[in-house]
């Protein structure tokens, strides 16, 4: 059993979950994910790792409440426990001194982007952070990012913070901000990662995305997380989850992600992600 240290809603529909899992906390690296099961009937749900405390032995994830299993997670309280928490899974995000890196985050991906930004900064990069959301009240952790970034840029659809609009304005925003990234890393919902990859392709700037397919075991056994990258079949759990966004077959990926929508009653659309674009 794994103790819940904290579970609270940080912005509407997004929850922070802190679990006691000392071995995972020891091993966690940027780009990894964990698999949790809220109770004995629950699904195995992959969640990106957003933070960890090696001394306290805790790992933190940010999750969006979308279906039955995440609703169960959202009901957990400090002091409760969960039967499963396994990880850290997936390859680590590649960190080196690339020069200037733009980190783009949205939704729960703002959380998982944070350790990436920290590690990039530590490796000597000039880090810029761009947070994107439907409205200012959906953005979080700006102060944390400010500590490791040259600048934190906000983009909101309703213009309540930063630039008005969405990530399709990226080229223009980069010009205005005078940023010439050597690398772009995107963590967030599929739409944000796809859209960013589409706008950065003509710019010729390498763009890494942190893919979020349906998974079951997450350990390289079941094959449900397969996707097409550069024309080849890849498995997100062991070959990824980071891939080159310009090489991902997005259309296929989006369709595969919707396989169980009827069963899981995705209120994703209501939460605004899909209506972004």
């Amino acid at each position, binding site marked *: 059993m794994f103790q819940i240290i904290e579970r609270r809603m940080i912005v509407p529909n997004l929850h922070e979950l802190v679990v006691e899992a000392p071995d995972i906390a020891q091993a966690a690296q940027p780009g990894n994910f964990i*698999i949790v099961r809220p109770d004995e009937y629950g699904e195995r749900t992959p969640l990106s790792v957003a933070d960890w405390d090696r001394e306290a032995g805790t790992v933190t994830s940010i999750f969006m409440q979308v279906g039955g299993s995440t609703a169960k997670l959202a009901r957990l309280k400090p002091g409760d426990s969960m039967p499963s*928490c*396994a990880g850290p*899974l997936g390859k680590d995000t590649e960190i080196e001194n690339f020069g200037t890196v733009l980190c783009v985050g949205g939704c729960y991906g703002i959380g998982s982007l944070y350790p990436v930004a920290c590690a990039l900064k530590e490796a000597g990069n000039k880090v810029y952070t761009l947070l994107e959301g439907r409205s200012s009240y959906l953005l979080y952790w700006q102060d944390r990012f400010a500590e490791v970034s040259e600048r934190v840029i906000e983009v909101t659809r309703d213009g309540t913070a930063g630039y008005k609009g969405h990530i399709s304005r990226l080229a223009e925003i980069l010009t205005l901000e005078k940023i010439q990234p050597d690398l772009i890393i995107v963590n967030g919902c599929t739409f944000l990662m796809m859209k960013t990859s589409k706008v950065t392709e003509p710019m010729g700037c390498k763009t890494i995305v942190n893919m979020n397919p349906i998974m*079951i075991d997450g350990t*390289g*056994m079941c094959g*449900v997380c397969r996707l097409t990258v550069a024309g080849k*079949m890849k498995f997100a759990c062991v070959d990824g989850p980071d891939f080159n966004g310009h090489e991902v077959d997005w259309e296929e990926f989006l369709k595969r992600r919707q396989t169980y929508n009827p069963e899981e009653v995705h209120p994703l659309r209501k939460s605004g992600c899909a209506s972004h674009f």
Partner: protein
Amino acid sequence: MAKQIDYKQRAMPKQEPFERVKNFDEVALGYTETLAQEEASRCLGCKRPFCTQGCPVAVDIPGFIQCIVDGDFAGGIRKIKETNALPAVCGRVCPQEEQCEQVCVLGKKGDPVSIGRLERFLADWEAASGATETPDIAPPTGKRIAIVGSGPAGVTVANDLALLGHEVVIYEALHDAGGVLTYGIPEFRLPKAIVKREVEYVKSLGVKLYTDYIVGKTKTIDKLGDEFDAIFIAAGAGLPWFLEIPGENLNGVYSANEYLTRCNLMKGFRFPEYDTPIKRPSNVAVFGGGNVAMDSARTALRLGADEVHIVYRRSRSELPAREEEVENAEEEGVIFDFLTLPIRLNGNEHGWLTSLECLKMELGEPDDSGRRRPVPIEGSEFIMPVDAAVCSIGNSPNPLIPMTTPGLEVGRKGNIVADEETGKTSRDAIWAGGDVVTGAATVISAMGAGRNAAKDIHEYLSKK
């Protein structure tokens, strides 16, 4: 007076096909005491028993069968357990027709003794009697062994080394122990309560089990090496293979691993009581001809499919599945399309599978394996409407440990290289066995590998 030889095997009671396709309960019901004793009496008690030689772990077969004849069931199960820690499992899933029963002398003129069913009878008798005997455990040696994976290979090593007084810890990546016995083989063939019982038994010997623990990720092999005197890797099979034909990423196309894991480990067949969903398609095609294909096809029937096809490119006699499971599948109404090669999967605009295109084959010249090679018949393409397809053509070994363990020698297919006799790997104090070494094989061969490795590990620890 010479004993009258009885060449006719006693049939094992089963659920009727029309009943059983509607439930996930075990198909085979097992021998009654009377049937078991009748069947056991057929054994000739050979002085030099071929059957024992045919068993990968050399169970004293005539010995336990004589116990059944004598009504000494406790003695019988004790005999089996001398060499086989999982009799309730093996009695159900071993390919006996290729092992012990294949070489039974009665088989020359009639039916061989039904060894698997008798083994199962004793194991079930013991469970029902509630009087499981715990063998003597040697005094503690102070040596610690880590085992990676709780499938048949891992559990066997844990059992053997715990009995020898070593401290054993099993690390299992999934949330439930048992390996393929839990996530792959369906309830109707191997009830999960039996697997649980066997795992509990090994735990009762003092073995510690940590689930949700992914060696290589949660902790690397090298870090474990600092805490343990020896490591045994039994991580089993990994990434599924696909046919590499167009359309395999359409929705509705599954690997058998996914399909069976959803159903067995995650209990998708009880959705929405359990949260993991599984689709209930009406026309299903299963690719492959092994046990995994049979399990997938029969699972699809039980989930309510109208028509389930097994699409296999060779003919019936080449099916690698256990004969009994092929018969069960046939009785239940699975349609076998032999000499048929899937060439393309077609979908609709939403990315959902709608049909399967196949090619008819005929048998040509024998290939390297001596089997006649299937060759496509030109112009024989045809289309089958399907809304689900399950690919059961095998898998490569689990990649996580090789990926994170420097210096561990790996073969061309990603399998861990280990000595055939001892299971010793290229790294000091590390052994490996089961599917992660051989690629997909059998429960009993994984157990055999475990048995040999345990012996070698014990020798190594005794000298240390």
